[in-house]
């Protein structure tokens, strides 16, 4: 078992951290305040290969492994969880879905444009009131004269208001009977499509989150991703993609909390010394560090399994649960290390906290991930 990063992974880490520090960090707090989605930063990510890190080179991507992907997500999330979730929790997940389930024609048609940033995308899964409970979805697609006709509503779609390509999962019906689930590639310009941005969010304020509506949208048959028989598996892999990016993002924010806490503990004076000299402050920094490192290693383990195409759902549930728990804890403790300043908006700690609290609600409650771990452990399907 070798825990060292490859030369390529080290290069990727340096590049992502540098980009995050120079190009994201300076405007992250301002974008949060203004609730502004920084489209221009997404554009700058394309030439660096950050919009297609896991896409094979033949389709215009960087062809990196999943550990590199996790490292990139972490690096970006350290500066902005909003951008990390937008790019890696939605756009990259669509790329991954195309790579896993797409036809050659679909891959050739979409992936190169997605890597270049010319086609920005999103996954539309959640429905009002039922979330990801696919059995109770109210949206549906029906074949009519050689076209899929799609009707329904998806909520809280990350990038929903700013993407050109929408991957939507709906129920499929035929002659009134239900036939399972279908995943459809829909472009924004299709008649009957509309979206409504969510405003005054608490966290992820620099991320575009929108409700999207399909009213009789006609989609060519070749835009069905994979097959209807595999509908449930596609949903599962979609949730896996989202949760993997959330786990890696949480590790990144937790690291940002550690970095800020160490810096402050070395500067702030109280009772005649820097507060970093106090055991109780040290304990908080130790707890953050232990948790973050454990969550990071679990996430890399998932990444390794993904790269080697091995089953990973138990490991992902563990990583996702621990990473979100660690990140909330680290953000809370980082606020505490900074005292009242941590509660104020002059420092980014409160933004880290709001962003984490928002992000971990995406992709299922921590309770679900815990139960997934238990069901794997107990062998319950």
């Amino acid at each position: 078992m070798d825990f060292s990063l490859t030369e390529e992974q080290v290069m990727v880490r340096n590049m992502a951290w540098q980009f995050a520090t120079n190009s994201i960090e300076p405007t992250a707090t301002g974008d949060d305040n203004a609730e502004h989605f920084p489209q221009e930063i997404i554009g700058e990510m394309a030439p660096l290969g950050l919009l297609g890190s896991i896409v094979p080179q033949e389709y215009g991507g960087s062809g990196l492994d999943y550990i590199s992907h996790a490292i990139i997500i972490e690096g970006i999330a350290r500066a902005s969880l909003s951008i990390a979730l937008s790019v890696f929790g939605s756009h990259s997940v669509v790329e991954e879905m195309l790579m896993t389930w797409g036809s050659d024609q679909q891959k050739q048609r979409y992936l190169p444009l997605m890597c270049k940033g010319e086609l920005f995308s999103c996954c539309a899964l959640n429905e009002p009131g039922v979330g990801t409970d696919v059995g109770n979805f109210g949206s549906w697609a029906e074949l009519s004269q050689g076209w899929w006709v799609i009707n329904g509503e998806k909520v809280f779609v990350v990038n929903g208001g700013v993407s050109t390509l929408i991957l939507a999962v709906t129920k499929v019906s035929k002659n009134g009977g239900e036939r399972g689930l279908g995943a459809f590639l829909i472009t924004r310009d299709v008649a009957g499509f509309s979206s409504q941005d969510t405003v005054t969010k608490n966290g992820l304020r620099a991320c575009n989150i929108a409700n999207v509506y399909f009213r009789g949208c006609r989609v060519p048959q070749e835009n069905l991703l994979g097959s209807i028989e595999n509908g449930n598996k596609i949903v599962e892999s979609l949730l896996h993609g989202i949760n993997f990016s959330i786990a890696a993002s949480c590790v990144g924010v937790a690291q940002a909390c550690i970095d800020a806490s160490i810096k402050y503990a070395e500067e702030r004076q109280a009772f005649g010394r820097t507060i970093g000299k106090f055991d109780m402050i040290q304990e908080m920094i130790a707890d953050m560090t232990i948790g973050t490192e454990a969550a990071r290693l679990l996430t890399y383990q998932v990444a390794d399994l993904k790269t080697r195409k091995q089953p990973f759902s138990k490991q992902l549930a563990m990583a996702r649960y621990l990473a979100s728990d660690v990140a909330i804890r680290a953000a809370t403790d980082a606020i505490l290390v900074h005292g009242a300043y941590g509660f104020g908006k002059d420092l980014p700690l409160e933004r880290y906290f709001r962003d984490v609290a928002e992000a971990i609600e995406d992709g299922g409650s921590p309770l679900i991930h815990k139960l997934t771990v238990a069901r794997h452990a107990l062998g319950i399907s």
Partner: protein
Amino acid sequence: MVILQFDEEVANLFFELTEEQKEIKQRARDYAEKRISVVQEEDYDKGVFRPEIVKEMGELGFFAGVVPEEYGGNNVGFLGTVLCVEELGRVSASYCMLPTSQTVGPGLTILRHGTEEQKDKYVRGLVSGDIIGCFSSTEPDAGSDVAAMKMVAVEKGDRFILNGTKTWATGGSVADMGLFWVYTDKEKGTRGISCFIVDLKDSPGISTHLIEELGLHCCRASEVAFQDVEISKDCLLGNKGEGYGILMETLGESRLCASTRALGLGHACLDDCINFVKERKQAGQKIGNLQLVEARIAEMYIEHEAARMLIYQVAANKDRGIGDPLDVPTAKYVACEAAVKAAETAMEIFGSFSFPLNMALRRYMNDSRCFPITEGTRNILKLIISRTLLR
């Protein structure tokens, strides 16, 4: 071997409520649900504080529990006051700070240490809400370490000249008066700290600015800067050099209310979660039937009840004149940690049903992060407790 001795009187736990206490609890609940919840919904994201709420609460007697009748008191005591703060806190972690910034902080401190003139000038107004109060010992570079403060008051004839900056004063920008702790003799360390009553509206040289915060958006903290502010000698509260002792007393009581604010927020989380899991279905069954959800609800209740008992005990004992250096820090620690956790549990239970976070959840999450910081951080409380035990 050291064996903890429990004072029998302290351990005598009866919280039988008087009719007045029951009434003020109900009054606070009604007012919070009918009035505060409505304005808070409208104001929270905009960070608006409504000064008229102070007057309304004053009229309802929410600041009158801890003062004698001659100053407008209503005899509900600390127990009645915490019941009231708990009910207000169930709806708003912002507005439930007012009983502290009015009477539990400034009003009571002036009653204890003030001259007849000082009591006459301020206490009735703080009780009725005609005067808005605030207090602060904190400075940009001096929080838990009070002695690190830099602000000074220099004696000049029959005046004091104040220079320095106090910060995180709840209500500082709207307050008419405030208590501020400053050095009159820096050489003497904590024995050189004095407490002053400052009229904020008609003292030239004072400027305030609102602090942007994570939560508590309806009752905002301010920085209060003093530049050559001249005040009369009559503004000194108690004697010179007594400030530190006065502050510790004030904090003892404001800390009790801080724990009660956390209790109120925990109560709200519990209420919301119970209502939610009884209604919400996932994959065909009510989520309240899921054992893990049941476990979380039970844990929230257990921790909430433990905090409640501790707080009521401290309050009831205070009303009987019984004090203990461990009781307030213990109650505050338990209540604040319970509230922080309750907010997170509420998030877990609402899961992705609340993405993006709804208004109540965002308030619980954001507001609760102040509890382990304000009025004695988590670490300071632990130090007080262990140092008392190890003394």
